[in-house]
């Protein structure tokens, strides 16, 4: 079938709009890459645009050579891997019973959880709780304070609810218990939402900054987000050095360090994204349409 003139116009319009949207996301990233690869002199003079001026890996060297970034990278992976597994485990464990309409008090507990989306204890009370539990300076503090995201739990619960009840009935007839039903029927059917939520949790843990900063005192346990932030900060907080600073400590412009730090943070996520993306898109769609 041939496209009508109107349709062609519509497509053209769509392409222009989408290209613009894509560029508005891509250009800043490209700009950052080009800044991070440019000579600091050129960055300071503001002549760098989308192509690096005077190739230089100095800002990456500053990030990688002689710093704890390798440990921080590994810490980030542990923090993200274990954290995501834990979060998923508990999210599923909460979402499944709450999705069963024969579970007495499901509504009450759901409301209780929704309540936490609006009200929180505040930083210092939370810190005191974490301290009383002996979790200070362990990743437990990061994992348990944000173990289940109420929003994610609701998405998963909604998804579970829309698995046809007939399946449940049939399974019960055959003598299948709750655990087995969950493991062999519900979870395999929920791969999309599991993938999507894992990615949410994963990105969240990968980027976790404030919790690590507040609860972790041992610098060898810092993750990438904190370490890189520290480096960037120290480049820009120069006012106070006021005569006490020693000569060649800082030769890089904060912009270059910032850029290379951001790229280093984003890159692993960029690599992981394509693998989860197809599930991700499907997961969101399914939850949205049915919810």
């Amino acid at each position: 079938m041939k496209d009508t003139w109107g349709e062609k116009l519509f497509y053209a319009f769509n392409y222009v709009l989408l290209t613009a949207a894509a560029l508005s996301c891509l250009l800043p990233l490209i700009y950052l890459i080009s800044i991070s690869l440019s000579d600091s002199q050129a960055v300071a003079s503001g002549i760098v645009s989308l192509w690096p001026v005077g190739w230089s890996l100095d800002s990456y060297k500053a990030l990688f050579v002689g710093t704890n970034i390798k440990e921080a990278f590994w810490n980030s992976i542990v923090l993200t891997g274990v954290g995501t597994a834990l979060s998923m485990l508990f999210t599923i464990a909460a979402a499944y019973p709450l999705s069963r309409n024969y579970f007495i008090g499901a509504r009450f507990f759901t409301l209780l959880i929704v309540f936490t989306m609006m009200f929180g204890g505040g930083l210092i009370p939370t810190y005191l709780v974490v301290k009383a539990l002996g979790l200070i300076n362990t990743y437990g503090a990061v994992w348990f304070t944000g173990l289940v995201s109420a929003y994610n739990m609701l998405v998963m619960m909604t998804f579970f609810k829309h698995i046809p009840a007939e399946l449940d009935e049939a399974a019960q007839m055959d003598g299948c218990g709750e655990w087995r039903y969950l493991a062999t029927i519900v979870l395999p059917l929920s791969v999309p939402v599991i993938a999507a939520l894992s990615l949410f949790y994963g990105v969240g843990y990968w980027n976790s900054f404030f919790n690590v900063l507040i609860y972790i005192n041992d610098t060898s346990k810092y993750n990438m987000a904190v370490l890189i932030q520290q480096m960037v900060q120290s480049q820009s907080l120069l006012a106070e050095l006021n005569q006490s600073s020693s000569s060649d400590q800082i030769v890089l412009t904060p912009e270059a360090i910032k850029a290379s730090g951001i790229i280093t943070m984003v890159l692993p996520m960029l690599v992981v994204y394509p693998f989860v993306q197809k599930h991700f898109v499907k997961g969101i769609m399914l939850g949205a349409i049915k919810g």
Partner: protein
Amino acid sequence: MNVKEEGRPSKEVKPAASGISTVRVDKDYSLWKEKSLDEFRRVVSMRKRVNKQMVYGSMVCIAALSALLAACTKESADPAPGASSGEGGAKRGQISVSLYDRGTVPQQVGTVEKNNWTQYVNEKGPVDVKFVPIPRGESVQKLNVLFASGSAPDVIHEFDSPFRNQLYASKQIMPVDDLIEKYSTVYKKLLQKYPELKKAATKPDGKMYEFGRVQRLVGFQALFIRNDWLKKLNLKVPQTTEELLQVAKAFAEQDPDGNGKKDTYGIALSSETGATVDTMFQNFGWIEEGGKMIKDWDRAQAALAFKKQIYDSGLTDKDFLADKNGQKSIQDWVSGKTGIFVGRTVDTVNFKTYYEPLKKNVPGAEVIAIKLPESPYGRFAAGVNNPVQMTTVINASAKDPAAAMKYVDFMSSDEAAKSFRYGFENVHYTVGPQGCPVQKDPEKYKTEIAWNVDFQLLLQQIEMGDCAQVEAQLNPDVPLEKDFIEIIKQNNEANLASDVKYGRITHAEHFPSLPANLQTIATNTAQISDIYNKAIVSGDKYTVDQAMKDARKMWDDQGGKQLEDFYGKWYAEQKDKAFLAADMMKFAKK
């Protein structure tokens, strides 16, 4: 001999470094792997009947849990790394001290809490010190949490004076007069030599609560002007604000860079340059008049009118308001597009920010630092450093305040200062022809010393003489650095000349902190600057007079009167006791 000595410290340092970060993480990991495998096997044998998916599920679950347990138990079994060193020494006090973490400690020398300098403090110092890293960017937040949970360190180094005042107000830090009297030797002497240290440390209740560092008074901000442009256009160094406007006009319109295009700015207006225009007119919000501290409006109006004139005549970047942190104005300056610009001359890094790139981009550029031009309100210093900077307080719940005092004494001693600044003689430096230390090996200096600035919060730089000044840290054999040494000298003269006044009531760090309710008012009234900005860029549509009227109205509506009362009362009570502008001038080099 030299070789041997050079080798020693780095050898001492290395094992400590490898011991910490890498091994710990690996241990964590292997523990995790072993445990989870064991658990896995047990699970399998226990539940052979359970179907396959179930096992996978519980494996993931148990692996996760055991990893968690491993992380937790390891922590409690392993005492804090810093505490162990130097035990056994008879009756050495033990304290914990906060230390800024900037992520700049090179891996070869260890981590923030354990490195060659923490070792130095523990070995040479009189007490055992456990350093508690405080992330620099979020220091106030972190310290707040630590205080609230009762786990704050005994000695706290913090630059933020409102935060220290807050600690004082909530009685979380202790008065130190008695401690100094009983236990101090070094700091006591400093107090006698520089009574201003006491002035600055004394809180409204009449007791001292803070320790600080004394530095020579030098020029901080510098009004840079392109001398080659002045010469080319046959202009003189501007002496009054009127002349400054003329020069800026010529710079903007007469093509001083000779490229045939009208692409130059006379003067920058964002960030520090804009603030310096305020300085020219002494527009700091508060002035002293007839022995009273009052809110000023005349100077604000004059400064605003001047800025508006610059903007309306097209002498500056039209988008200066978008340049929030001044980055764009620096770029314009170093690429040779701006004729008048305010930079700094207090740190060697300033050379690399303001001068070196400019000379690379425009080799013919010639920069001088000049006195601020005279305004109807007088002639003022562009900006000076805070010569008496308070940095250190002692936690009210410190168990061993005497040990904390000894630590403070050690950190402010000449010996420690020299080591922190230059390293060790013949290892890191040799004494040069001018009697100043000269670095032996820049690489070694960089890994072992350059990053230790956060150990220098009690470093009495004024005691270290000329060698510790910025000029001495630049190399006069490098032509560009030699130029900058000259510029630093010019700026010190321009800022500290006898016909130049320091326009503020006192350095911002010595202002009293506002109580919370007044803080809100201060934040609200700070939006007056939006009115001023609007007036600068709105041309004829929004006049200076109208802006001043609106600003005063906003000030009154938001309760600015309460601020006037607060500061007025503070000044009336404290003007003889507090550390004010006149005290600062005593620290200039005679």
